[in-house]
């Protein structure tokens, strides 16, 4: 049975942490059974590839591995210096520990959930994290990241590496290739967005991760545009979602109906026993929001909003309910 990868990684980590002088690749191969096996049963090449991958994995796990020349033979060697790998002094009181434990549990994404609990394990092993008596709140906050693009973009933003991906703009039928320098990721309303420099458009763009249509590929080379100190992804997205509206609209609302609209109202006044008149912020997307409430809403002003809502309603009202062929087929299929 081949030796498990975790055992191999653990051995490499222990060798590198335990040495005070750089160890050559050959020395490491001689000390670690899994490498012996790989070198004997495979080629030199397959061992080399395995060794490079393992070093990368350990670095991802936080180990600082230095590469130095051995003064005796000039061969390069590897070591993980203790002073560079030690957790600095840190102490947390019980409340802070409980709060951090709650926070560590929020990720609903395998990689980050693993990383967050890994961080807690390190703190706990170091004696920094005392057992929390109880959770500070009954709330379970959750951060989802189901989009496949999330992990590669996170790594690329961290390492400042340009990426390419296919992207289907809202409303577009086909995807287009994009070359982007990823700056920041933001989760808003449960969806992830990327802000970055779009090289072809030579401007800042925000992308919704769920609209990335293929694998994110990392490109060689460095960023070409300056990364701003602060990237406000949320503000950009919010503008499109109708927040940050500058104008207002006047609407009538049937009493008791369309509660979500009422919560946004700037003012409410009764018109008669059945209807109220409201003033609401008028931003991107309001026409669709209003149309969704059907006969519970009547737009008074501005005129272009009223016309937009009427046009939308007409589009729905004009659709023959059962006369179209596709409706008939689907109906029969049920």
């Amino acid at each position: 049975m081949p030796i498990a990868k975790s055992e191999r990684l653990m051995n490499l980590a222990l060798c590198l942490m335990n040495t005070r002088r750089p160890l050559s690749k050959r020395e490491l191969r001689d000390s670690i059974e899994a490498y012996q096996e790989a070198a004997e049963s495979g080629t030199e090449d397959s061992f080399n590839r395995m060794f490079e991958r393992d070093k990368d994995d350990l670095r991802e796990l936080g180990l600082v591995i230095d590469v130095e020349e051995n003064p005796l033979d000039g061969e390069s060697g590897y070591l993980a210096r203790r002073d560079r790998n030690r957790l600095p002094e840190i102490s947390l009181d019980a409340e802070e520990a409980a709060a951090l434990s709650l926070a560590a549990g929020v990720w609903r994404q395998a990689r980050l959930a693993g990383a967050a609990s890994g961080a807690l394990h390190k703190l706990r092993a170091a004696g920094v994290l005392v057992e929390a008596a109880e959770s500070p709140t009954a709330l379970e906050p959750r951060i989802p990241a189901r989009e496949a693009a999330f992990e590669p973009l996170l790594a690329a933003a961290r390492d400042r590496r340009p990426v390419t991906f296919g992207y289907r703009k809202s409303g577009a039928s086909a995807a287009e290739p994009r070359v982007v320098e990823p700056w920041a990721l933001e989760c808003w309303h449960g969806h992830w967005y990327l802000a970055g420099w779009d090289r072809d458009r030579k401007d800042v763009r925000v992308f919704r991760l769920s609209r990335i249509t293929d694998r994110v590929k990392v490109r060689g080379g460095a960023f070409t545009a300056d990364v701003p100190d602060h990237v406000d992804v949320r503000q950009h997205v919010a503008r499109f979602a109708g927040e940050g509206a500058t104008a207002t609209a006047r609407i009538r609302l049937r009493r008791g109906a369309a509660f979500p609209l009422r919560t946004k109202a700037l003012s409410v006044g009764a018109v008669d026993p059945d209807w109220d008149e409201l003033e609401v912020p008028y931003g991107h997307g309001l026409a669709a929001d209003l149309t969704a409430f059907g006969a519970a809403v009547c737009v008074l002003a501005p005129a272009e909003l009223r016309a937009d809502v009427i046009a939308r309603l007409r589009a729905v009202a004009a659709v023959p309910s059962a006369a179209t062929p596709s409706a008939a087929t689907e109906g029969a299929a049920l």
Partner: protein
Amino acid sequence: MSNAIDQTRRMLSLVTYLRERPGARVGDVARAFGITERELVGDLNVLPMCGTSFRGGDLLDIDTDGERIWWHNPDDVAQPLRLASDEAISLLVAARAVAGLPGLRERDRTALTRAVAKLEAAAGDAAEGSARVGVTFEAEGSVFADVDRALTERRRLWMRYYSSGRGEMTEREVDPIRLVSEGHTYLEGWCRLSEDRRMFRLDRVADIQVLDVPSDPPPLELRDLSDGLVRPAADDPQVVLEVGPAGRWVTEYYGHEESLELPDGGLRITLRTPDPAGLVQLALRLGADGRITAPAELAERARATAAAALSLYADDGQAAGQHDGQADGRAADDPAEGRG
């Protein structure tokens, strides 16, 4: 192979942990690391194969009698390790997000803020990049505190709740089960009105009271929410929609069984919902960008609702301009919602 990564990550901390706690109990260690005893024993089977050289017998002499764990040759290699960048980022981003959670108790918020500052200092370079990731939970703080209190004190809630499917206010009593935040904040509770468990979106609670009645939900198993908070049942009614390119966003907001590409760049989307009437709203929102194609009664209902709404504008006659198709579909109103 991510399993091997997670296991290695854990074992590196495990040796540090065990060095400080000779004779640690298997149950305690498993709990501290959030794993099963079986998983821990798996780790303990690997560790004795690890060391600085397999030839020289320089291996970790760690064993267990099934109850306690002993390390017979502990050495100083097991020092507490610095945080990896993904560890620092994941914890800092999560901590900042939770600290910004509306309705969080002030004491917990300040504790988190303190912890974040200490963690940033301890993580050093590894924390770099954490400022590049942000998570915002929605501001639904006004009723949050009452729900949180009802859960902690195990008491029943009365609420006036806007049912999106029916488009009207309802009054009901609810035994709270848990409070979940994912984009929006939801209360999962046992609804005494419908005698069933329901997800309530807190921003649709118009009025709330913590009752002087103990909460008494029937014994329930907590559902696994990893595929999303609201999942239709297999026997829920099926609905088919056809959308144009500008209506493709529907698949991003609605869990669906199938979505097929259409020749015009649109999609045919098949989904199940406990509450098909709620999709009339979606059809209206879509306007010219999509329509319900099945069942026929539901399509007709959307059409009739639009016709009824149009009658409110009877004065405008034909004056209403052509629809210019600029609907973007970034629905500001997240359609994920509970049965209720």
